[in-house]
């Protein structure tokens, strides 16, 4: 169990993490989601006692991280795949970690086998691909057979087989009754693994909810209609008291009315339809809507092509958001890298 209360981190004027309060419970995979630069890694570093919080408190099973005398036995963490000395072999890297916590050396061989690095155990880490480095980091997290596991963007650099493997690993770890806390900036990834969701944006808590609730509340269903007589279609819908929104390429989007009803309405009015399709906004769109206000820089200045005509009703969670989605997140990321 990881408990955060009022956790805050300031770097000068900038508030990286702002008054975060939530609890990560055992037995389930908790997804930690946020745009790049939202403060996910900073939060994780504070949980591990690497960064000192400016305010607030974080406890691991009721204790501060610095009070843990055998931390690898309590909490295993993968922060950064390259947080190791490249000149050291995989085996020796894990051995020095094991020794610092009094873990027997036999355990090193076990975890190397678990992550599938046994063939390269005696190779120096600098020759490893990102995926192999990621696996070695995961081996380090599993070393102490801990009750709590924390992974920062674990699927980065893994091939499809590796991604499949890490998903199953996280689920099985949680099933054994462990606390699994995993960060990502990809909603699609989280939807496949996490049962609980903590969303942050600009360091603030945006949502702390179960995945099922998040899907129920945030996935908007609507119907896309397309007609050669667009103006008449709008008039008909307006006359029937149905609210509409502009879709991409002259399409019309209707909220809250089922497709059969709309089809029958069009038939009564003898209106030609080229498209009548029920749609569901993806979770990524829902996530983007949730964090839209928190993204520091919007995409407009960087990639004008990605911006659509005007703000659509329904808070901007309209279809065709893919371009906006990627671009909206590229903004802060690119700027931060440059800075």
């Amino acid at each position, binding site marked *: 169990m990881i408990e955060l209360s009022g956790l805050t981190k300031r770097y000068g004027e900038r508030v990286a993490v702002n008054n975060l309060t939530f609890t990560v*419970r*055992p*037995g*389930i995979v908790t997804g930690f989601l946020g745009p790049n630069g939202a403060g996910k890694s900073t939060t994780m*570093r504070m949980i*591990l*006692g*690497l*960064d*000192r919080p400016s305010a607030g408190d974080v406890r691991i099973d009721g204790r501060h*991280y*610095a009070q*843990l*005398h*055998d*931390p*690898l*036995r309590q909490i295993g*963490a993968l*922060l*950064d795949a*390259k*947080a*190791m*000395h*490249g*000149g*050291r*072999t995989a085996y*020796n890297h894990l*051995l*020095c*970690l094991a*020794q*610092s*916590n*009094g*873990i*027997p050396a036999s*355990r090193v061989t*076990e*975890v190397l*086998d*678990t992550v599938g690095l046994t063939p390269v155990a005696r190779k120096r880490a600098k020759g490893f691909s990102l995926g192999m480095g990621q696996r070695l980091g995961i081996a*380090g997290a*599993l070393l*102490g*057979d*801990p*009750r709590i596991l924390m992974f920062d963007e674990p699927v980065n650099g893994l091939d499809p087989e590796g991604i499949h*493997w890490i998903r*199953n*690993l996280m689920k*099985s*770890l*949680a*099933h*054994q*009754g*462990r606390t699994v806390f995993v960060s990502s900036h990809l909603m699609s990834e989280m939807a496949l693994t996490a049962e609980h969701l903590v969303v942050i944006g600009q360091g603030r808590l945006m949502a702390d909810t179960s995945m099922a609730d998040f899907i129920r509340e945030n996935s908007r269903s609507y119907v896309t209609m397309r007609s050669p007589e667009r103006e008449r279609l709008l008039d008909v819908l307006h006359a029937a008291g149905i609210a509409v929104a502009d879709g991409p390429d002259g399409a019309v989007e209707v909220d809250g009315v089922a497709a059969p009803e709309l089809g029958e309405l069009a038939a009564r009015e003898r209106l030609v339809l080229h498209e009548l399709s029920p749609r569901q906004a993806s979770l990524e769109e829902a996530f983007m809507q949730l964090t839209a206000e928190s993204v520091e820089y919007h995409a407009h200045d960087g990639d004008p092509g990605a911006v659509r005509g005007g703000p659509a009703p329904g808070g901007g969670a309209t279809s065709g958001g893919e371009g906006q989605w990627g671009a909206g997140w590229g903004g802060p990321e690119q700027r931060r890298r440059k800075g």
Partner: protein
Amino acid sequence: MTTPTQQPEQPGALPGAMYTSPIPVRPTHLGHALASEWTKIRSVRSTVWTLCVFVALVVGIGLLVGWKTSGETYTDVPYTIPALFGLMLGQICLITLGVLVVTSEYGTGMIRTTFTAAPQRHRVLAAKFLVFFALAYTVSAVSITVVGLATAAINEIPSGPGENWGTSVLLGSLYVSLLGVLGLAVGSMLRHSAGAITAMLGVVLVPAIMPAFLMISPALRGIGETMLEYNAPNSLSALFGTAMYDGQAGGVPQLLALLGITLVAVAGAFALLEKRDV
């Protein structure tokens, strides 16, 4: 699907039930940190190479000099004198190694893994100091002894003060090892390999070069003389009983001065370690 533990996955494990590891829990102590640091220091090539260069310099130059000298040289100086020339160069190796022991962790990001595994940061740093000092001291003491024994064997040496070479082994090794420890402390504070090595080269070289300029002005003469006496090469020579600049001190005050500076730097390293984010 492999599970990370050897124990079979319990089908009845309820979500929410706390997981308990089958590995017995042992509270950690300094011994664990020492074992870990020893593994770290021996498992990278740069350590091994740096120490090899050090031994090659001290023993290689030492044997050459010992071979080219005759017995009369050692009437009033210890047999280990030939090792002094190698040590002058070799001390740079120990300084570099001391710096790298800690800065390589900051450079690679390993430090985050280290402090995650051992949040008692002072224990990690203490283990680094102890392991490095023990290693540096042992390697330099053995190298100097080898040179002393070889010189005594090659040359027909008349009995005299030259036979008392034990002190030069003990204190000479201590001096160069302390320079390395100072490097480690500076590295821990600066967290940057190049910066820390440059700073340490300054510490060793500037007091050896500056006096040439300071001596010009009568007002600064006092400072210049102190620098001449206390700079690293001269201190080391004094400990071998053949100071280049003959002050009244016979090496021990210089050693104590270095010890003092090193202790201050070590204290600074510990103080900063707890305050800063990693």
